[in-house]
């Protein structure tokens, strides 16, 4: 019969081990939450927005040139992150220690940098912000028509 056996870890080692596990898990949760509320992320059971849609929304919401809108955007997400973390069981004092503002601001800057680059490219006519080609109907014999191919007339 398997007997109760003590792990060969000292108490500090065991506690450090547990802390590391908890820390990793909370950090994963933070990343997941950020991913769920960022425009370039994906919510549970939802389709991710295309870059074109993201860019459109970015400009419409005034995140390019309206500091008040940008500040409001950050504030909303800080509240969201804080609430979500608390829902995940992270105690308030630890939420404070993860600096939600920093996290959201960092995420915002990253996202904004990406959108700004797309805007520049669109303005310069490089045309990166084009919807990706989508598969078209098969022409009957299993060959797929390319986006530029002419559909044969009957």
């Amino acid at each position, binding site marked *: 019969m398997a007997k109760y056996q003590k*792990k060969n870890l000292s108490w500090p080692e065991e506690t450090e081990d547990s802390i590391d596990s908890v820390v990793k898990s909370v950090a994963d949760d933070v990343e997941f939450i950020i991913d769920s509320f960022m425009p370039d992320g994906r919510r549970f059971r939802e389709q991710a927005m295309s870059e074109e849609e993201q860019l459109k929304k970015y400009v419409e919401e005034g995140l390019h040139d309206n500091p008040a809108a*940008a500040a409001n955007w950050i504030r909303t997400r800080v509240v969201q992150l804080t609430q979500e973390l608390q829902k995940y069981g992270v105690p308030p004092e630890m939420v404070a220690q993860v600096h939600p503002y920093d996290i959201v601001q960092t995420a915002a800057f990253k996202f904004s940098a990406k959108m*700004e680059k797309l805007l520049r490219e669109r303005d310069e006519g490089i045309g990166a912000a084009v919807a990706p080609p989508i598969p078209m109907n098969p022409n009957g014999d299993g060959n797929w028509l390319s986006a530029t191919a002419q559909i044969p007339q009957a």
Partner: protein
Amino acid sequence: MLKVQLDVYSKRDRLIDKFRQALDGRNPIKAPRSMTYKTVAWHTRRLNAILNEKTSRYRPTPEIKVIPVGKDGRVSKPIRNKAERLEKGANGMFYQLERQGAESVWQNIVWDLHVADAACEKWLRSPSTWWPKLVPYLEEDEEEGAEPRDVLERVHGDSYEKIRESYKQEQGLPITRFWVPIERFYPVFDRGFLTEGFELSERSLRSLMNNPLFDTSSLSGYAQRGDGGLGQSVVILEYSNDTYHAYYALGPSTNSRQAWPRITSSLSLTMGTPVLLHSYEHGLGRPVYNYIIGRGGGWVSGDSRQEGVMEALLDKNQQADELFSQKATFLRNTMWPTRAAYFDREARGSDDNPPAPPKIEEGGIISMFKGEDIKNLTMNIPDFQFADRLSEQIIGDMNALAGSPVLYGERQPGVNTGYHQQIQQNQAKHLDSQIENALSRGAIGGVELAFLHIRAMGEKCYVFSAEKGRSGKMDGEYLCIDPKDIDPLPQLAAKVIDPQPQDLMIAAQTALQLTQMRPGHNTPLLDDARARQDILGFQDPEDIERSITEQTLREQLRLNPVIAQDMAQRLGLELAKRQSATLSPEEAASASPAFQQAAAEMNQSGEAAAAGGVQPANLAAQIDGRRMAESRTRDGAGTGGILQGVGGGLPTGAPQPMQVMGRTAQVMQGSQLG
């Protein structure tokens, strides 16, 4: 001598044979042969059901406990450790035997002890079979007086000793055990001790001839048939006393040379001439057989107090079979419907013979005259009141004789209260505990034989032991059983049955009630240690107490603010390490003017710091982490330090107003870097 023993145990053999027949459902059911109805003969298999249920209470293999023996009432730690190692070795041995497929030996022993009031097993060693590379020999070119050496010594030379031990580890313990059906073993007891034993078994003549250990010269003439003796069964007689273990073949008698003895015929066994095949000194000081005596005395002198119980069980089983068959016969002949058609003679015409019965398809329609009818001839099914009562009585009697299944919650007829149910459970437990004690003694006897074999070999033996650790994974190791550690033989105990969950629940409830504060006394009836030991059956209540204290202290330590603070700091570090939380200077510079201005205003206003304890310079530090960390007088301060894998936390080295004021500048500076 064998003849005497066959006579002494003839009653036992007949009874056990009858019992095995009943278990196999081969007991004849007396039923009338009739042409007018079909007789149904069904076996209830009640005996099998009882045995299955009773034998399933036991562990698949026994758990051995080596009891450390101290001096002056104190057991020192080395003695305890040694006992624990040996204990693991003994249990590892069962694990190995199980892997070899010998687990059925223990199952058969449990079965026999229940059925026949005794059980027997045989422990043998065969090092040359298990360790062939350790058999010493002389090469052809070596002188006759030279020391024989084994193949490992010849090949490995200097590293021989090490290789030898690892070879033994790999090959395993050279000990096997065999189940001996109790009706094939004839023990001789002297003042209660087993001094000699005869065992009968069967092998093919071919198997005998192919065994290099056996001297079969006198049997060689019989193996000349086309099948090489495969079809000829030969009865083998094994004999063991304190010194020897010998094998004999019971050959055909000289008068009728083709009439070989048969194991099922006691008479034929006394006619053959025993031919010595092989014998050796086993060096155990006791026979190689482990004879386990059951609760009825185990047929030690050819009698058993269990005999009456066995006979009664057989009778009751027979009665149950016959009653069951009668009911089944009745149902068989009444429940398949027979119909009668009633015709109107006048309507059909005056004929002495009734018309042919109508053929009606299932669900079909026929036409008949008014007043005619078709009815089932079957009679009403009786409620079998008397037969059912008899049936219940038989089952109740069998349960009382065998140790009833009330232990598994089956309520007996007439038992309507919990109190009566409890009485029945106690009775069943007492019957079981007698068998449990017998099995426990048997398990100890088996381990002692194994240890004696190891001592007789004088070789360190290894067994593999595997245990499930706390993580749930299996951990294994080779354990050495050193002959020095088992001379003298250690004191052993064995557990053959695990407590049932309901036992533990009842014990836990009792322990809880006894240790609760009593009104008026303000003390419990029992202290915790005694309740743990006497009610719950734990052997080391002090250990449990210590573990609980340790657990409580650990929990208190875990709730310490230092731990929480450390966890928060590490979380900050972890987030800083991750890609999502770090911002490159290029990204900071490329962000929109709206975001840059918004961040600067929020940080300057103190909003960010107020809500969530954000470090005002943190973002800026991230933007230009490396340079800031290097520029600080305190090494490792700031997220920049974190990025470099040094220190962590907040850049406390910078004065707060400067941080706030410099934030926008830093952001902008970062953007220029991009």
